[in-house]
């Protein structure tokens, strides 16, 4: 049973893929581990946000993704 990790925008290039599966439940330490060292480095920046189940987390360190959840890694945006 699994959590889907989505790599958005430039993080997709760093990860080398659009998404990756990880074991549920997934917490902050587990995410850093599953994302790989290059992405984990970016995740530590306060400009990178994390969404779980379609909601942006106000405190990403409190991540607690359950089976079936989608965890999206959101780098700084450049819209407009």
């Amino acid at each position, binding site marked *: 049973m699994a959590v889907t990790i*989505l790599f*958005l*925008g*430039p993080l997709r*290039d760093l990860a080398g893929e659009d998404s990756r599966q990880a074991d549920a439940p997934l917490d902050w330490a587990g995410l850093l581990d599953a994302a790989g060292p290059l992405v984990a480095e970016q995740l530590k920046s306060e400009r990178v946000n994390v*969404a779980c189940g*379609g*909601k*942006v987390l106000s405190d990403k360190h409190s991540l607690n993704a359950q089976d079936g959840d*989608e965890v*999206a890694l*959101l*780098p*700084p*945006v*450049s*819209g*407009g």
Partner: protein
Amino acid sequence: MLRDIRIESGAFDPHRIASDLARECPEAGGIASFLGAVRAGGGVEALELSHYEPITLAGMEALADDASTRFDLMGLAMIHRIGHMVPGDPIVCVAAASRHRRDAIEAIDFCMDHLKSAAWFWKRELRSEGAGSAWHWIEPREQDYSDKDRWKK
């Protein structure tokens, strides 16, 4: 209040947005609009905009809620392209209708500042380089953060 908040994956006519709003808000004295387009020149051949669907439109709707609370508006339209674009293509259009002009002008200024640095879009450019061309991600400029901070109270 009339609202038209959309994400478009294909071409749209930005000048229709303001003219539709003017027609549908006959009691508005002013219509302000802003169009952001892919700039010609500078070696940019194409632009690709991606988003994270579950939160992007909800974020634009929340931004429209915020704008309609801050400003006295009769109508607000916010349309954002995603996908593959070429120079000259519209990327974003925001239009606002209000009784007095400053509400409409401040509303488009406010929405653009927040769309630019707080909405969930990522942009990359295909730039010509020597014999070929390569994609480059665009980060928000520091200016975009300070523009947004103007609105904090």
